[in-house]
């Protein structure tokens, strides 16, 4: 019952907001953020319900139709984990947008598209059959194309067009894979497919899995398929960059890769090796490309590629510890990367440029932004005690435990390179030496920049606070109710079909 509200509420918000929001001025600000807050509360309630009432998996049949025929909505611990991540980030980003989006016209249109994207992501997460996953994936993608082009400047339109073309290739591949799956198994329900396909020796099954990884890999911006991301993510307005890098690439990419590989198709070790290799490649290439960037948002976008590599590395190891590291890094990355994109938005708000060399006197005038950016940078670089450190540590330990010394070494090297690149960000963007500033002392308009509005600061400080405390999720008793059960769903992939079809 509650689980269907994750689609109903955002979709209803889209429609109501685009009718009333265009006539009433502040309506969408208030309405959308209240709905987002309700969604956050609901996602925690569903975690509580899942732990208390239901036995591991709860299946909801839309319209009351039985499993192979109807649409099923599935709630397991992985679903709830993703719902919590997506809705928390969406809530904070929505609050941030109240002040940030004042500069754009048609704010209600922005909020409608935002909620449409949220509805798409929630739908992808809770769907239990392939075709609904495809439909919601398209909803989320199409909303994100429009949001990337929201400023309708030349660069933004170009980036959006590139994004549309490449993303359409990805959805085409996914649709082809779904068609082949349906032809082979005569069903689209994930659990039913898992029951029908018992072994992966068949060539067609291998082709299907290959197509799925290719399609979802483009969405996740895994390295040979990453070209669209460094254009699309920086061009969007900052809250949307935070949503795209923070949760969209993970929901449409990493989460679906996990779901398809572990829960639907029979697992074979070679596949995990491919994922591991893709992860290592993404980590290295992403961070090397990020090193020489001066555009703050573009640098962050390249780091997203690199950090997605960490998640795939953890998942590709295939051990419980590796998977725990992978999905914990997914959670952490969505927190600190959206935080960093929000700080880039705050700087852009005051300085109207994205070039790091053009920011002056930030640490003196924008204290809260500087604090949040420092916390975010240290988290992404993996400095203890921030959350990024714990997930990277888990991944590296898992690498060594499963005798993948090389992968562990690469993870450490990439972490150091990430630290280097974020030290550059902090040095040039935030803490400039006094002698560099002397020549600007004479220009009061630079020194009189004030801090950004309260709601923007509130979002950033909350995310920074989360960065500091999230390591606590690894504390055994908290881990048992939240992370470990999600890992169990992934690691014991067969549980999924057994519990749904029982």
């Amino acid at each position, binding site marked *: *019952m509650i689980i*269907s509200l994750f689609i*109903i509420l955002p*979709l*209803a918000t*889209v*429609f*109501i907001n*685009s*009718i009333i929001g*265009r006539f009433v001025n502040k309506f969408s600000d208030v309405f959308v953020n209240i709905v987002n807050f309700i969604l956050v509360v609901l996602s925690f309630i569903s975690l509580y319900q899942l732990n208390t009432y239901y036995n591991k998996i709860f299946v*909801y*049949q*839309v*319209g*009351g139709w039985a499993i192979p025929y109807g*649409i099923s*909505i599935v709630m397991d611990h992985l679903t709830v984990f993703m719902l919590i991540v997506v809705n928390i980030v969406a809530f904070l980003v929505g609050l941030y947008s109240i002040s940030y989006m004042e500069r754009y016209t048609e704010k209600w249109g922005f909020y409608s598209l935002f909620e449409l994207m949220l509805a798409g992501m929630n739908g992808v997460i809770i769907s239990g059959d392939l075709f609904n996953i495809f439909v919601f994936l398209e909803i989320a993608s199409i909303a994100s194309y429009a949001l990337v082009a929201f400023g309708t400047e030349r660069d933004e339109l170009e980036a959006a067009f590139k994004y549309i073309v490449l993303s359409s290739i990805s959805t085409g591949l996914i649709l082809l894979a779904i068609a082949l799956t349906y032809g082979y198994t005569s069903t689209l329900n994930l659990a039913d497919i898992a029951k029908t396909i018992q072994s992966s020796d068949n060539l067609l099954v291998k082709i299907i899995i290959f197509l799925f990884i290719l399609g979802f890999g483009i969405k996740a911006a895994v390295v040979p398929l990453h070209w669209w991301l460094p254009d699309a993510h920086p061009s969007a307005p900052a809250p949307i960059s935070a949503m795209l890098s923070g949760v969209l690439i993970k929901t449409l990419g990493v989460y679906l890769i996990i779901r398809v590989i572990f829960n639907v198709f029979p697992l074979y070790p070679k596949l995990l090796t491919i994922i591991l290799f893709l992860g290592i490649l993404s980590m290295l290439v992403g961070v090397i490309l990020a090193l020489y960037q001066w555009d703050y948002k573009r640098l962050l976008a390249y780091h997203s590629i690199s950090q997605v590599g960490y998640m795939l590395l953890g998942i590709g190891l295939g051990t419980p510890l590796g998977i725990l590291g992978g999905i914990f890094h997914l959670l952490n990355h969505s927190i600190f990367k959206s935080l960093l994109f929000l700080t880039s938005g705050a700087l852009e708000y005051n300085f109207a440029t994205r070039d790091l060399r053009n920011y002056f006197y930030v640490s003196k005038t924008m204290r809260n932004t500087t604090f949040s950016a420092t916390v975010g940078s240290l988290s992404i670089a993996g400095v203890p005690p921030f959350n990024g450190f714990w997930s990277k540590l888990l991944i590296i330990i898992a690498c060594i435990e499963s005798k993948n010394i090389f992968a562990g070494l690469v993870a450490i090297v990439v972490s150091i390179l990430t630290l280097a690149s974020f030290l550059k960000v902090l040095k040039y963007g935030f803490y400039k030496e006094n002698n560099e500033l002397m020549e600007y002392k004479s220009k009061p308009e630079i020194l009189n920049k004030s801090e950004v509005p309260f709601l923007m600061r509130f979002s950033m400080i909350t995310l920074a606070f989360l960065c500091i405390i999230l390591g606590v999720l690894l504390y055994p008793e908290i881990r048992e109710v939240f992370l470990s059960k999600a890992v169990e769903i992934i690691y014991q992939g067969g549980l999924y079909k057994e519990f749904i079809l029982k």
Partner: protein
Amino acid sequence: MKDNKHTGMTLIVKTVTRWTVLLIMLYGWYITFFGHLSPGGGFAGGVIVALSFIHIILAYGKDFVAEKISEHLAGILETTGGLMFLTLAILGLAAGIFFKDFLGQGKVFSLFSGGIILPANIAIMIKVGFGMLSAFLCLILFSYQDKK
């Protein structure tokens, strides 16, 4: 409004349009209302209804329709269609299950049968019809502003 005779296409096209456009729209409604009995449904019907509007735009020039249905109004009507469809689903939730068929099957092959399929088809028709119309209006709006 500008001189109506000198915008759009020739008198022959306008006369034929005047005679056929209601039939086209009626056909769209037919396809929608009998979607659960014969091939068709909300999407196909909606496209035909939108084509009847586009037909008028092509024959009479863009101002003729754009003055009566602005892209603003088309957007609102489109959203209403989406909201109607969602309302149907939520009414099902009130009857117990999301998207539950709360109307019952009815007499087979009669017009009012098939449960919520008929109202759902009508909602989809409004959504698709005005969605396509507003997309078309947006396209011609841009060229209009360029000429100025």
